[in-house]
């Protein structure tokens, strides 16, 4: 299944999906030194976003989030790619300066954690590989 949206930052990667139904605040909500989600009661609390194709509706919270994405990248803990329903400026700027492929305007309903995703952010699409 292939879904097409809008290019936020180009790049071509494959990776395991980590899916949240909630907004993410990278500042405060994600530890830049471990890549773990730390927000109380978040559906990804305790999960590592490192190397995952991170799928969530939209960013929220602090405007420092862009720098946290940059720090995660420098620490080797950034997500491989980001898929949003609607990518807001803070996440977009983080992806631009950290060079993380990102696509938005995607219907997130069909995504589940653990499936393999192919992301071609250059052309703005993401492909969900059928589970075995």
């Amino acid at each position: 299944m292939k879904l097409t949206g809008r290019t936020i930052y180009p790049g071509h990667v494959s990776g395991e999906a980590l899916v949240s139904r909630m907004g993410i605040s990278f500042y405060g909500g994600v530890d830049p030194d471990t890549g773990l989600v730390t927000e109380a009661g978040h559906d990804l609390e305790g999960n590592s976003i490192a190397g995952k194709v991170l799928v969530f509706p939209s960013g929220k919270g602090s405007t420092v989030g862009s720098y946290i994405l940059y720090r995660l990248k420098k620490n080797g803990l950034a997500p491989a790619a980001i898929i949003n329903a609607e990518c807001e400026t803070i996440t977009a700027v983080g992806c631009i300066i950290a060079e993380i492929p990102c696509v938005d305007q995607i219907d997130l309903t069909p995504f589940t954690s653990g499936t393999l995703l192919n992301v071609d952010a250059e052309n703005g699409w993401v492909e969900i590989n059928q589970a075995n």
Partner: protein
Amino acid sequence: MHLTPEEQALLAGEAGHATQKAMEILTALGRIYGAERMIAVGSVQISGVSYANLGEAGLSWLAEMADGGGKTRVFTTLNPAGMDIENYTNLGISEEFAENQRRVLSAFDRMGVVTTCSCTPYLFGNLPRFGEHIAWAESSAVCYANAVIGARTNREGGPSALAAALTGRTPAYGYHLDENRQPTLHVQVKAAVTKNPDFGALGKAIGDRIQSQSGYRVPLISGVSEANLENLKSLCASIATYGGVALFHIPGITPEASAYALPTESLTLTDEDLQRAKQELNTASREEVDFVSLGCPHLSLREIHRIAELLNGKRVTKEFWITTSRPVKGMADRMGYTEIIETAGAKFATDTCCVVAPIKGRFTALATDSAKACYYAYAKNNFKTRLLPFDEVVREACQ
């Protein structure tokens, strides 16, 4: 996107490498969000200042921009730092951290940023007018500027705010345009919202429900008839933290509330919803509290006056931080509030706050009146929290 000859020159690097990089960020955003042109901004507020948040990676990015000849082209103020610049040893901040924090401030200073180190720029000289286009970071101030003042800004990230400062421009999209300022959700409040933890709880209750809405999230809040500056800054901080909200409208209180039609989608919040929001932020027992802080967002002079009234002749028994901006602290000094507060044993943490200071591992539980501070106390520092009315926070510090 249409660029003027001057903007094209900046993009071509004619004003140096840093300004070119800034223009690259802005044109990328403009392309993504379908902006037709750039607009001039009246002022900028930059976030991403505490060394604890930036780390060496963020600092090196900023230093490159400063070394690359970046200079502000518009009045630009700065978010809180990770320490009181003049009095950090009193707060238990190490000399090593202080040195790194000074390197961050030096990078901003070299670029011409006014190092105000506060999240409430609108209280002392960076006050946009109604309808003015600005490029602000600091989620609570973004919300205050858009909702309460009626200025126009997107939720800029730290780097995109700096980019706007170095070029004097931002792409015309999002909350700069009329069509995105229309309310998308009617929130009917059927509860008494009168004091600060009520406004913070209201922000959390709305934010929790609106965060998964895609597109522009603009609540129109009815059922709130009174709100002063301090209530509004509390609501702004909370609704931005929990919901990523950049703009809301309250009929009779905010200036654009009557400019748009009522949204069809609606939500009712009862007293029970607000109580639940408060309860979720009350995870500590009174005995566990070993850290007390007021000033998220930074305290107004009126709030500091109230703390002085409550602390007059009293003795604080816990670490108690009064966080505010340098200009407001200056007036508190003149009025004698500072002396009363410090005599009682509380500490001014000017230029900084309990959200951005490096205090992980130092405390067990925070008592505050700020729903935003509770979020970061847990998520960033793993503290338990007690969300209390303003006056009770001061009493808790003396227990």
